[in-house]
């Protein structure tokens, strides 16, 4: 989202402008790939011990804060359950008990349809996770350097005073699915900016930190630092909760992309060019 250089107009109304630079596009899709594989291999790793705790260890005398499992139901049939802070939910078919690729019921926390690898295979899931953790971290560092150097972060993401003053209106607009038109559509709106900044500067650093806190070797780098996150098992819980928040962010992100012009957004993240309608229709290219 940078240069205002306009591309040659195409046949339809509106005009294309250069919204996403090549580095941003490459880093965006690298992120899509690595976050997807990190999430799916992470769920496979979680399946090896589908319980989350708060504290320095798992065996503190307190029950897990979250547990996904299966047990015999009252009628003798197997039941999948999810227990959060002692409240149990029947999640048969999805969590705890679900059908595998061959259709048979599996007692597994997250179903094999959303894990990498599909079948239970902890060591291979760790291989995937740690490889793409590196891809993700290096990509993130590259983004930070690029964002600072090119001014992308300051120019496109940092909210201005008028942005912040208009936050109430922006919330209303989002609720009504009204998206900025014309010139206004060339900039990120304030909620978008704040969401991106929260992800880039809060959630992502925190999930990386919580990941490091699970490494027994890195725990020794600065004695006691893991306790700042509540201990290793708390860090594991934080890691999981942030993964859920990031998944929610992606869901909202994809939803907003779809409702505000899927093909226009997709094109701009692939070729760089985004169509802005001068008239007042939304920017979707139809």
């Amino acid at each position: 989202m940078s240069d205002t250089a306009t591309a040659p107009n195409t046949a339809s109304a509106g005009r294309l402008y250069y919204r996403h630079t090549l580095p941003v596009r490459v880093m965006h899709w690298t992120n899509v790939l690595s976050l997807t594989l990190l999430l799916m291999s992470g769920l496979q790793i979680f399946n090896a011990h589908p319980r989350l705790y708060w504290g320095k260890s798992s065996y503190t005398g307190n029950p897990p804060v979250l547990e996904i499992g299966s047990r015999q139901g009252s009628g003798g049939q197997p039941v999948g359950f999810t227990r959060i802070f002692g409240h149990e939910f029947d999640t048969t078919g999805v969590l705890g008990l679900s059908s595998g690729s061959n259709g048979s019921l599996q007692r597994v926390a997250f179903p094999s349809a959303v894990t990498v690898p599909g079948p239970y295979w902890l060591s291979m899931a760790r291989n995937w996770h740690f490889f793409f953790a590196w891809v993700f971290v290096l990509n993130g560092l590259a983004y930070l350097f690029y964002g600072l150097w090119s001014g992308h972060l300051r120019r496109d993401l940092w909210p201005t005073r008028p942005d912040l003053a208009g936050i109430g209106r922006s919330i209303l607009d989002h609720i009504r699915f009204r998206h900025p038109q014309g010139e206004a559509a060339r900039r990120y709106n304030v909620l978008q900016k704040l969401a991106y900044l929260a992800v880039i500067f809060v959630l992502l650093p925190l999930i990386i930190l919580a990941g490091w806190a699970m490494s027994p070797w890195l725990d020794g780098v600065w004695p006691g630092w893991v306790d700042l996150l509540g201990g290793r098992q708390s860090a594991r819980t934080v890691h999981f909760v942030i993964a859920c928040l990031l998944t929610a962010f992606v869901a909202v992100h994809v939803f907003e992309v779809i409702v505000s012009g899927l093909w226009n957004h997709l094109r701009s993240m692939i070729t760089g060019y985004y169509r802005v309608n001068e008239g007042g229709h939304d920017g979707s290219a139809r």
Partner: protein
Amino acid sequence: MDRRAEVPGGKDGSPPARLLVSSPRRSLLRGGLAGLGAALLAGCDRLSNSAWFPEQVLSLGERLSSAVHQTLAAKAMAQEFTEADLSPVFRSNGTANPESSEYQKLVAGEFSDWALQVSGLVEQPMSFNLAALRALPARTQITRHDCVEGWSAIGKWTGVPLAQIIEQVKPTANARFVVFHCADPMESDGTHPYYESIDLAEASHPQTLLAYELNGKPLPVANGAPLRLRVERQLGYKQAKYLMRIELVESFASIGGGRGGYWEDEGYQWYAGI
């Protein structure tokens, strides 16, 4: 820790998304996404099962992590805890009671016939019984045990720093790794005894112990009696139990499956600091 599932699947090519020209754009999109997802999953499973991808691509992650960890914190100490942090019961995982008759005889004799053999690339092969180990200067530490599955337990270990043993047997110049041979067979037919390995630097770390006590009492059978390894900056599968023999080697390629440990032979990372 379960054996990894036998991996049959992944070969079933995902059904091609049927994209009918006449169908509305929305269902086309949905079908396309579902097809893409299934293709991604099938592709990942195929890569996992290939000979080259885990070995040549994914393992880069482990190698990078290991290199960075060694640079950042080669000599760092693992966090130590207080009595208040101790887990009420220290979980036993993996083998809880080795079935071999040799081991059961040792248990019956309260390990009076047991002695740790130390051999291989050393100038002075030695053997140590429990009394000899207890006579050496000991170290006690309260540390966290992190299983590769994800759980942690905190216990108090007392034992001999491995560095003392290594010093006494005088490694030859070409010795690089310390291999731990254990009493517990990992196959039901009594074969494939558990084993592990660490490098000499890790063996000389002050918190690397041959532990004979857990929480102030002789090591229970469930936790590795009479002697187990503690390598505090690595995962649980490195903490070999039921130690029988220590061997110094230049390479572990010819031992077991050649990857330096029972779980390593099953595909787990040799460097277990993460």
